[in-house]
């Protein structure tokens, strides 16, 4: 992966200070994303995947301690001034947030909110913005975009809200889309629609899809698996899912109902980053003495990295 990619993340760490001690939400993340590439970040609750998405856009508030660097188009996001940052968010990088129903302002119509963003991003003004909003709503699969345009968010179901959110995020033609759990809580039909829609609308952009759903992750070209704030395995999606090298990836795959529902033993601990050595060793059957040294994310094949000394 070249240094000149669209997004280059190096050694990104985020810690939250809580009353019970410091929680290292993400720890030393390295990530490269090329133009027009789709990357899925998969992990379970508490692994830090959402924090990573927010950290890339510098959306975390001041209780978070952030270290490391995020470079978007060779510009350091954490050194940008306010104007550049506002330009970046909702212009160059668009976020499709979690919980669709609460992500719209309930007292403004959907259309108005989309137009506002388009105007803010400086794409179109006035009537042009309205036209574009309608165009994206119909691209998002609404047969009556006019009706949705003048609706208030509570009139829409969860799946419809998600589609409207995607239309809004993509209406500014961003270079990078970060979709945070786009399929959470949706049924099979809507899930398929949403994934199809995301890929269709974002075909000219790069995308990071943050998800816990391996089925959704399958639709992306590359896959990174996170556990306890670290990337434990990364590579082309098909290869990783068919031939997982990390025990945790294997566990996730086997835990799916269609693959036999074999649970992963033990439970995830928010403070496991305090332990020495491999963070997964407590839950791993293959754990040995070697696992007391913290493993590095190392290349095992071309284009593929695993953080496990047994891989």
């Amino acid at each position, binding site marked *: 992966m070249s240094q000149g990619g669209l997004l280059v993340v190096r050694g990104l760490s985020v810690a939250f200070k809580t009353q019970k001690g410091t929680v290292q939400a993400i720890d030393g993340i390295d990530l490269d994303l090329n133009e027009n590439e789709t990357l899925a970040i998969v992990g379970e609750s508490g692994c830090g995947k959402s924090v990573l998405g*927010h950290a890339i856009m510098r959306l975390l508030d001041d209780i978070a301690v952030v270290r490391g660097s995020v470079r978007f188009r060779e510009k350091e996001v954490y050194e940008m001034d306010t104007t550049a940052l506002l330009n970046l968010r909702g212009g160059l990088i668009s976020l499709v947030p979690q919980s669709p129903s609460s992500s719209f302002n309930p007292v403004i119509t959907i259309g108005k909110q989309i137009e506002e963003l388009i105007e803010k991003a400086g794409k179109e003004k006035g009537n042009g913005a309205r036209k574009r909003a309608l165009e994206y709503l119909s691209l998002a699969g609404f047969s009556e975009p006019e009706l949705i345009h003048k609706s208030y968010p509570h009139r829409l179901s969860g799946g419809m809200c998600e589609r409207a959110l995607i239309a809004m995020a993509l209406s500014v033609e961003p270079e990078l889309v970060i979709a945070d759990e786009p399929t959470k809580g949706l049924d099979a039909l809507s899930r398929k629609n949403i994934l199809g829609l995301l890929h269709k609308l974002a075909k000219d952009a790069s995308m990071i899809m943050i998800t816990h759903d391996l089925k959704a992750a399958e639709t992306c070209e590359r896959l990174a698996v996170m556990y306890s704030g670290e990337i434990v395995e990364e590579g082309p999606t098909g290869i990783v899912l068919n031939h997982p090298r990390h025990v945790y990836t294997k566990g996730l795959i086997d835990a799916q109902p269609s693959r036999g529902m074999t649970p992963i033993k033990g439970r995830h601990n*928010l403070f496991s980053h305090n332990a020495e050595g491999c963070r997964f060793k407590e839950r791993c059957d293959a754990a040995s003495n070697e696992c007391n040294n913290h493993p590095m994310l190392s290349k095992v094949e071309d284009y593929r990295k695993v953080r496990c000394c047994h891989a």
Partner: protein
Amino acid sequence: MPRIQSRLYMPNVENMSEKWSSSLDIGKFRKRVCASPIKFTGIAILVVLVFIAITAPLIAPHDPEKTGIPYQSPSADHLLGTNDLGQDIFSELLYASRTSLVVGFLAAIISIVIGVSVGLMAGYYKGWIRELLMGMTDVFLLIPGLPLMIILAAYLSPSMWNIILVIGLLWWCSTARVVQSRVLQVREMQFIESTRALGYSDSYILHKHVLANTKEVIYAKFSLAVASAMLAEASLSFLGLGDPLNISWGEMIHFAFTRGGFANDMWWWYLPPGLMICITVLAFVLITMESRKDSRLVELI
């Protein structure tokens, strides 16, 4: 829910007992004060005020009924001078805290009890019960409160109890509204349904779950109700509708106004009761202020 867990074996039963015994622990206390210093400032002011009210006969330098030389300026003997009858204003100020606080608390209790019952019922039950109760609340909300209170207080004999009743019976509507909207929120949560599925009755659920989840709102509303009841009492008393036998801060200002305190520019007569009202109301408002919680953090992780 019965607190039987301490009798039950639990792996960290030591932790539990620690939790109970430590409520008196100085270190823990300091930690809690630091967590919400504003709230504790309010509580501290209130404790001092209640202490003054209870011990007024002991700490007052003079009997407030005793007459002497009128219109004296503040001196070592009479800290805030004397009034037109030569009574010690400082002692009167201390005694007046009793009336003001009693009126405030009792009126607030009446209004909260009515407001919470109406709000709970209207929030939990659907159909005509809600329509009736909320319709009634709306009617009461529309009545201009202070003018009606003035009329009622003027027609009824001027006693402290009448004032308490008048304020309490007219000031519950906003509580009912707030409680009702909170209850509407709580009753949609799934634990209400699952508790019903366990076979518990409506009254149990209302009491143990709905009320328990509404209590923060009620506490806040109660503090504010005490404050507004005291202000209402002060307004009525200032207009001369107070109880002449139980002097309150509002009445002190009234007397200062009618008996030449203002005319003679005796600020030590009318200013202190006004300040006391402000401080007490401030204390209650401070108590209702919540310390910022880092609940967002939990969501993010």
